[in-house]
């Protein structure tokens, strides 16, 4: 019936995570960095659900963890984007490198 090995999901998840990480490290626009973060969190969720589905389906801890990742993703994007918009309004930039008020 099910013929997909777990490795496929895990490799997919690593790939998605790395693409997201590249976005976070290399993009200039702060909104794009947030998008990269969303990709990384999605990769984490794929990973968690793959482990839950293949190895530990009896316990609920995998699903609860996915729930928490969703909540964290929502909180992170809400606060992160609010910060970006606030910085944009004050300093008129969305380039992450230019947001350096705290630089000594």
């Amino acid at each position, binding site marked *: *019936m099910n013929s*997909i090995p*777990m*490795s496929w*999901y895990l*490799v*997919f998840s*690593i*790939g*998605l995570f*790395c*693409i*997201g*990480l*590249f*976005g976070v*490290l*290399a*993009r*200039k*626009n702060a*909104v*794009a960095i*947030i*998008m*990269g973060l*969303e*990709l990384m969190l*999605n990769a984490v*969720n*794929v990973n968690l659900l793959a482990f*839950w*589905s*293949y*190895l*530990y*389906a009896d316990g*609920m801890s995998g*699903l*609860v963890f996915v729930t*928490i990742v*969703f*909540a964290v993703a*929502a*909180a992170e*994007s*809400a*606060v992160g*984007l*609010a910060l970006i*918009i*606030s910085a*944009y*309004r*004050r*300093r*008129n930039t*969305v*380039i992450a*490198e230019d947001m350096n008020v705290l630089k000594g």
Partner: protein
Amino acid sequence: MTPMQIVFLLVASVTLASAVMVVSTRRMFHAALWLILTLLGVAILFALLESRFFTIVQVVVYVGAIAILVLFAVMLTRHVMSEDQPQLNRSWWIASLATIGLFTGMVLVMRTWPIFTTTQRAVGPGGEDLQKLGFAFVDPSGFMIPFEIVSVLLLAALIGAVFIAAERKGGKG
């Protein structure tokens, strides 16, 4: 190749390709649209993993809410970065080297793991037991504390985000 495998490969390759577009396209709005496609692809993978609830949650929360928030943020901050100038910073090649290194390293490490290629599912064909999940959320010996903490976390995020975003124009700055 079974039909399931074909579906998986199709969905996974489309998803990864659109993820690459998210991090590489110049126009921010298009990046957001590619992000939506990626999120939908991940939702289909959740469905293949027999988790119906999270498939729908992925669509409702990510596509229906977070993606729209990102789109609005893109709209609000337009005109600041012209789209002709490079979208990647100077050290992008270090970032790409690091991510490729991470990818190969992770795959190599994972390959040594004996159950890496298992096809044996632990979950039954009915998907997750939502009743059990709901029970676990409010069970004192289960996940009662994380459940309440999630709500406090979201409250904190709401208050913080509204506080930051709702500042008056007449204020500082």
